[in-house]
């Protein structure tokens, strides 16, 4: 008799075969927030309409964001012969032509396409060409920004419909959970995660397995595992990317986290307003319940686990682990004193573990392929990959999963294609607004937690904002500090007042009204924040300035001597800033 999981897999295989190996074509439109932002919804509607009105034999789906965001809206067509052809920057008006010519007549629009793949990987080495029909098109895998990636957490992006659990299962989904529940003890999983070297991807880089091992021994009947999806860092969109493009990988990771730590409940914590993430996560949880992957006696085993999506209001500090627990409890999102640490006393005073979306998204593949496999990717101190988000003055903005150990320069030049406008990349802001700015002399730094920290920045959440030679570093610093000032929760006055004070000074600097003593004042305020704040928001708030002094000292000194080139829409160095604040 087949097990419950084998039954699920059989249903999934049938579904996948219908989509990929039948008589009908499969048209996939890249979605996600980034697709929506450039009109993917309208493109989807146009393709549905074109298929219906032309009577073409095709299924149209919206899939997640494939990561090459500069090519969005993106559409690809998989024909019954197994050849899949990718079109970039597609407008709704092109739907009819693509459906008529490519799907109905079997003649792809080669001058509009940018890449192809063939079934069973027969053309994946970058040189093979498959018969007539693909012309001189490169294979997808031969494009540098694809070839340089090592897709683990993002493995299904752009391939499956995130709202269809069967498509996830058909691509090995939930097989790690099945293996964990039927072949492994909780302690074995904790050891596996420990041995893999997986470090937390929310920014703090704490060893995940060690964190899990703090929670696992407690015999408390109610224990919580929380997934932090409060992704507030400007420049980072990989957490939302995972949830929008492949939410089941997160749900599976969180269930395994729950099993390994013998926990009873899981929460996925998302900010209101991010509707696509909220819908995708909510639907994934619902489908997991329907499939018997959540609830009582999961997959017929002794293990029971509940999960829900918890919404928060607008607050950046809600992403701090103890503030997050306050928010789930429905209060102001301000950090708590530690100790007690969450593993002893967390959500509603129960033992609790908190992991970032990306950290959890690696878990199924680690359990499926083993710790050694994961450890073999990346660097000695940071195994695995970094999911970098490139934005700003970069030719190919997008989300790319690269092995740890690649240099910043390779990420910018080979993956990102270099500067988009202007002559050169002058500055990058890496790891969120509490982390540093790096100049060109640091671009040979490798991407791994320790090397980045040594350079004065951080991988943090994976965001890399790129500025060309026209970017005024003092003005960029002011924007970062303005963000931190606006988002201070206000609990610790060194952070609340310190950020306000630093913003005042930076305003003076940008307007060429600063005094030479202002630099020492900035430093003093920054050090007070570091010493006197409960959480990273205050403790790290001086980081951007400190790193900028290292790489752009001349520019900062110029602003203190009244010699800065004035910026801004009014030409006087002033900036439009929100006037609201938290009482």
């Amino acid at each position, binding site marked *: 008799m087949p097990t419950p999981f084998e039954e699920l897999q059989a249903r999934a295989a049938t579904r996948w075969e219908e989509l990929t190996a039948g008589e009908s074509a499969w048209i996939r439109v890249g979605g996600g927030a980034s697709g929506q932002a450039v009109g993917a919804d309208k493109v989807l509607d146009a393709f549905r309409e074109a298929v219906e009105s032309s009577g073409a034999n095709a299924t149209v789906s919206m899939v997640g964001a494939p990561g090459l965001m500069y090519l969005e809206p993106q559409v690809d067509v998989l024909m019954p012969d197994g050849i899949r052809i990718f079109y970039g920057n597609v407008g709704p008006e092109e739907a009819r032509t693509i459906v008529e010519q490519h799907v109905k007549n079997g003649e792809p629009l080669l001058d509009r396409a940018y890449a192809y793949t063939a079934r069973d990987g027969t053309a994946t080495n970058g040189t093979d060409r498959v018969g007539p029909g693909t012309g001189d098109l490169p294979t997808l895998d031969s494009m540098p920004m694809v070839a340089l990636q090592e897709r683990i957490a993002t493995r299904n992006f752009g391939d499956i419909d995130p709202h269809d659990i069967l498509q996830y299962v058909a691509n090995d989904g939930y097989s790690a959970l099945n293996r964990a529940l039927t072949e492994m003890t909780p302690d074995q999983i904790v050891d596996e995660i420990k041995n893999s070297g997986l470090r937390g991807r929310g920014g703090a880089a704490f060893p995940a397995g060690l964190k899990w091992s703090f929670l696992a021994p407690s015999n408390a009947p109610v224990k919580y595992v929380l997934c932090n999806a409060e992704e507030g860092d400007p*420049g980072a969109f990989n957490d939302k990317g995972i949830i929008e493009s492949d939410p089941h990988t997160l749900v599976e990771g969180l269930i395994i986290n729950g099993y390994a730590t013998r926990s009873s409940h899981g929460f996925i914590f998302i900010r209101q307003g991010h509707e696509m993430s909220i819908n995708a996560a909510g639907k994934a949880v619902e489908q997991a319940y329907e499939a018997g992957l959540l609830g009582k006696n999961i997959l017929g085993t002794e293990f029971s686990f509940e999960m*829900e999506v918890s919404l928060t*209001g607008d607050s950046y500090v809600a992403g701090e682990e103890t503030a997050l627990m306050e928010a789930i409890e429905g209060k102001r999102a301000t950090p708590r004193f530690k100790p007690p640490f969450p593993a002893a006393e967390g959500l509603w005073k129960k033992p609790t573990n908190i992991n970032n979306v990306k950290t959890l998204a690696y878990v199924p593949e680690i359990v499926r392929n083993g710790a050694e496999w994961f450890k073999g990717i990346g660097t000695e101190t940071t195994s695995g990959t970094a999911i970098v988000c490139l934005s700003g003055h970069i030719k190919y903005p997008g989300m790319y999963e690269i092995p740890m150990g690649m240099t910043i320069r390779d990420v910018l030049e080979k993956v990102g294609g270099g500067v988009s406008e202007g002559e050169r990349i002058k500055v990058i802001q890496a790891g969120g607004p509490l982390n540093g700015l790096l100049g060109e002399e640091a671009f040979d730094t490798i991407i791994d937690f320790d090397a980045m920290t040594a350079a004065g920045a951080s991988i943090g959440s994976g965001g890399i904002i790129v500025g060309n030679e026209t970017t005024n570093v003092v003005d960029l610093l002011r924007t970062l500090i303005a963000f931190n000032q606006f988002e201070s929760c206000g609990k610790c006055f060194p952070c609340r007042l310190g950020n306000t004070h630093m913003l005042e000074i930076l305003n003076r600097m940008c307007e060429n009204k600063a005094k030479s003593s202002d630099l020492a004042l900035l430093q003093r305020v920054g050090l007070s924040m570091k010493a006197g704040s409960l959480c990273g928001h205050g403790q790290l708030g001086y980081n951007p300035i400190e790193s900028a002094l290292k790489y752009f000292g001349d520019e900062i000194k110029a602003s203190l001597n009244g010699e800065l080139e004035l910026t801004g829409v009014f030409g006087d160095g002033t900036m439009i800033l929100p006037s609201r604040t938290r009482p």
Partner: protein
Amino acid sequence: MTTAETKQSSKLREQIRQVLNSQRQPTVTVLSSLLAVQDSIHHLPDEAIRETATFCGSTINEVWSVASFYTNFRFTPPGEKTLDVCWGPSCHILGAQEILNSVHAALELNEEGESPDGKVTLSYNTCLGACAQGPCIAIDHHLIGRQTPESAAKIARELRGLDG
């Protein structure tokens, strides 16, 4: 308070109670309740604070402490449409300040708030989450990327029913 106002208030309170009671998720808190009310009637009137306190067994003080903390909560009705403009560092580098300026002009504003005709509420957003498509704006949470000062101003004017 006039009779008409009292009637209106009691109707509003009833509506809020319905929203509070129809929360589907297992964990219901002050924050989830306030989010649900704002999602439904787009702001938190006095009645919402009071009804949430009763519903959650909290004090008005506790509810207000939550409502005043999260910057998405508002206490007066917004315009018919909400326009968010991102001013985060990534969009800033790509010209968000010029976009804010042109949108101000299009909405006859010089800060966040409602356009004089009450049609559009302008909010500054710290990050809309589609940085790769920046500069970004959003209409009622629907993202629109790759903006210029001109395209954003056109959208803002169209939201007011004026020619782009």
